């Protein structure tokens, strides 16, 4: 496996790339670009949740099967993913708990009346399931 470490131009942070298969069978490079201001990282392959502490905020791209985690605010994680090419419509917020491996689907960014989500919780069971599966695949070992 090759591993490159270089400095992100946008955040002056270290970015790691290595060849690896990721969740859902997609083969993509692992990219962990930690934003020093917000703490957000984009994660594309299995990373132990306890790396981040007991509780982390997570935003998932349900189309690209990747997530951003470890941010102070969900919008920070969402912005990281948008800069990486994600569409806001595909991004959903959640919180993950390492000890109990629980997930809640409560986030300010989930309020989208235009597509039928009127509260902070993800109301559509299919979207919830996708978010859950991606978090479990990437963060829960």
């Amino acid at each position, binding site marked *: 496996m090759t591993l490159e470490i270089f400095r992100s131009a946008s955040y002056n942070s270290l970015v790691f790339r290595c060849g690896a298969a990721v969740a859902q069978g997609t083969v993509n490079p692992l990219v962990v670009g930690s934003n020093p201001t*917000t703490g957000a990282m984009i994660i594309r392959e299995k990373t132990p949740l306890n790396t981040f502490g007991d509780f982390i*905020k997570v935003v998932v791209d349900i189309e690209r099967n990747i997530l951003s985690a470890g941010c*102070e*605010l*969900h*919008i*920070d994680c969402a912005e990281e993913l948008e800069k990486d090419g994600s569409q806001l419509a595909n991004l959903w*917020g959640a*919180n993950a708990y390492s000890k109990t491996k629980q997930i*809640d689907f*409560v*986030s*300010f*960014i989930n*309020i*989208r*009346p*235009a597509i039928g989500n*009127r*509260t*902070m919780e993800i109301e559509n069971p299919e979207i919830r399931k996708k978010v859950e599966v991606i978090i479990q695949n990437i963060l829960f070992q």
Partner: protein
Amino acid sequence: MNLDRWKTFTKSQQLLMIGSEIMRAVVWQHKDDEKFLGALERGMHLIKLCQLDEKWQNAKAMLAGLQEEFQKFSAKSRVDDISVLYRAL
């Protein structure tokens, strides 16, 4: 806090300030109603300032939804742990 000063902050900074009011409400929930409601009122004021800030032009529905949640706690139609709002930010 006036609107001109509020607009000088980034969206993240603005949300963190709303979050600090939520944390104040967490401290006083079920202990001191006056302080609890005061924190919520201040939080709703800050949300209102966001709604007047052009930076939030594309996320007004989100702000309206957040404000609605504040109103539910303020009117006691929600009495569960208000820290859920902080986790949602």
